[in-house]
């Protein structure tokens, strides 16, 4: 009796000791020391033993708990299974109402000055990522094509607007679909040769194309103005009324005091409307032969071909449609930022959007939206918490921690829920239970 009770405990101890050793090995130079340049620009080592010890202790503690958890009576297992919430009918309308009310509410609560940031970073920015996530979700989540160069299409949209707006004099209403089509065209051109590659090669080649496009944007000074980027292109107008102070501006026309936030609120609703449209299209397409073919392609490409599906064409549509959304998002990004430079389109950006799709559970619209809000919103929130700077030092940049956590989350997601929402995927069409008949 006694030994049976003691043995899991002592085993846990032994395992944790080993884990501590391993953590110490991992943490040894990289956590224990930090190299920083001194005044002569020579690197100087500073020791961080407390941090090192903290990591070792953490390793010990976690492993210890894990060991105990693993040796718990197995009956507990069944419990974890049962809870999968039913889709709630009121969720979507409630979320929509909240989204529509959000900027006005913020404006009413905080006033035009303080509302600026909240509408912009927490409104427009997150919605842009939601749009990007939904776009990539078509390519990755539905069709199962891992596109690591997605940001390139985003860039095509942004540069497309920044270059075409002054050149053609067209309004953004006209350029919005043009940017989308431009990106889709690029998707088509890149997709054409690469889509017959196996999944992971496809990922790498799209990555290569994405990086090439960025390097071109950096170096082709004559057109892209290099790292300095493009600015000064026409901005957003309210059906022809510019958001400027003077008498010809939006504020004067409607007889309200000028405020920068007006433009952002308009942009917010614009992005919201486009995102909802994208959502509608995605949801509808999922129930059409094309959408079902995308999902079938994700499941088994060979079986698709055996059923007569032209997989190359079907992949191309998924790729191009995903790119279209990114192009539109890029155009909106240019409108929001008023400034387009290559540094907004690095691989990290692609990885972030991919993480949004993956953590959103690959395939679920709502999950993707939540993941976008979480990933983008959380680090912005952290940035707001100035006291963190006091703890972590002046150079504290929450974005780095965000990507650190995002990386861990992606690994965890693949390990524990590799198919994400596919496992809780709702069929696109159902027969329902068999009607009670012939008895």
């Amino acid at each position, binding site marked *: 009796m006694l030994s049976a009770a003691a043995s899991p405990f002592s085993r846990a101890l032994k395992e944790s000791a080993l884990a501590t050793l391993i953590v110490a090995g991992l943490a040894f130079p990289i956590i224990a020391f930090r190299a920083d340049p001194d005044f002569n620009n020579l690197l100087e080592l500073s020791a961080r033993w407390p941090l090192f010890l903290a990591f070792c202790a953490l390793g010990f503690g976690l492993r210890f708990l894990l060991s105990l958890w693993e040796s718990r009576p197995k009956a507990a297992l069944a419990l974890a299974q049962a809870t999968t919430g039913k889709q709630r009918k009121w969720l979507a309308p409630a979320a929509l109402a909240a989204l529509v009310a959000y900027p006005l509410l913020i404006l009413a609560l905080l006033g035009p000055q303080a509302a600026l940031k909240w509408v912009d970073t927490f409104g427009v920015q997150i919605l842009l990522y939601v749009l990007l996530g939904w776009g990539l979700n078509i390519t990755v989540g539905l069709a199962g094509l891992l596109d690591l160069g997605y940001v390139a299409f985003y860039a095509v949209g942004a540069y497309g607007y920044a270059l075409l707006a002054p050149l053609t004099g067209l309004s953004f209403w006209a350029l919005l679909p043009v940017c989308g089509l431009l990106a889709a065209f690029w998707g088509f051109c890149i997709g054409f040769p690469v889509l017959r590659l196996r999944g992971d090669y496809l990922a790498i080649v799209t990555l290569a194309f994405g990086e090439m496009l960025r390097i071109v944007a950096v170096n082709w000074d004559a057109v892209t103005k290099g790292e300095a980027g493009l600015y000064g292109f026409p901005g957003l107008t309210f059906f022809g009324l510019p958001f400027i102070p003077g008498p010809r501006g939006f504020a004067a026309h409607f007889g309200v005091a000028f405020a920068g936030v007006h433009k952002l609120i308009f942009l917010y609703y614009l992005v919201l409307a486009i995102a909802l449209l994208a959502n509608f299209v995605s949801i509808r397409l999922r129930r*059409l032969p094309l959408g079902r073919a995308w999902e079938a392609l994700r*499941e088994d490409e060979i079986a698709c071909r055996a059923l007569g599906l032209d997989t190359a064409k079907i992949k191309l549509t998924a790729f191009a449609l995903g790119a279209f959304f990114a192009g539109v998002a890029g155009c909106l990004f240019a409108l929001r930022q008023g400034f387009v430079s290559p540094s907004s389109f690095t691989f990290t950006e692609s990885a972030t959007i991919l993480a949004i799709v993956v953590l959103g559970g690959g395939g679920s619209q709502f999950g993707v939206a939540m993941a976008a809000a979480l990933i983008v919103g959380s680090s912005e929130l952290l940035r707001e918490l100035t006291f963190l700077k006091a703890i972590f030092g002046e150079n504290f940049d929450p974005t780095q921690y965000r990507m650190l956590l995002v990386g861990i989350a992606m690994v965890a997601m693949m390990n524990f829920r590799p198919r994400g929402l*596919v496992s809780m995927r709702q*069929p696109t069409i*159902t*027969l329902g239970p068999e009607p009670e008949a012939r008895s």
Partner: protein
Amino acid sequence: MTGFAWIDDPLLRVDRVTMRFGGLTAVNDVSFSVGRGDITALIGPNGAGKTTLFNCLTGFYKPTVGRIAFSPKGGLDDDRIDELTATARRNSNDGGEDLYLLERMADFEIAKKARIARTFQNIRLFSGMSALENLIVAQHIALTPASGYGVFGLIGLPSYRRAESEAVERAKKWLERIGLRRRADDPAGALPYGDQRRLEIARAMCANPALLCLDEPAAGLNANESHGLATLLREIRGESGVSILLIEHDMAVVMAISDHVVVLDYGQKIADGSPLEVRENPAVIAAYLGVEDEELGPAEAELTAETKP
């Protein structure tokens, strides 16, 4: 008239097909025909090259050498085949009947245009999708034009809704047929093995094929399930008139349902004829049946039982 459909009214003619992988010759100079409306069995020991031959037929491999002619309505005619072979084209329909040279076509075109459907030795269902969805994806070719290539369906036109509900009806019929109506909305991957095998056959049938190719449909089934499968296949053939080409190891099934048996060994054809002929063939007995005497016993019993009434 010989009374043998594979001579009188063939719909598939495999002509001196050879498939090599590097130094390995998996299929060596094999020729045979499949009769319209027949159940043709392709048998042979493991590694004989049966699956490879299937892959050549369905376009997943390009045969190193050889010609494969197919006409969905049967009545293959050597002169027409030669005529088409001389051109660079893949198909002709000047004689009224469609004629295809499969070795010139891509895999999906074979399924789409020549209407050859197949199953796989290692089941390839869309396992994350529901059983019903599997059967609807199989009708993609018919549904796509009805959906206006995505456009009409997107705005919800009734013509598409009608087409879709027809597809659902068809799927439902097949689900009832294979006894999976109750599990229509479950992911295909969650079904028991035997159900998955039958669902894969139903999926192939939903594509409305002229020739159904089944790669070891009874593999992994118990005796009872195998028997049910044999009945199902015979019914399918009887109702829809589809021709069936199957690879099978279960001799009971082969002898019970096939009209024509082709035997491969080490990539070569060693026998070709009616089940009775093949069973008596000494080369076959030596290569294949000889080793599995005990399997032949019940097969024979079953065969006589089946033919009695």
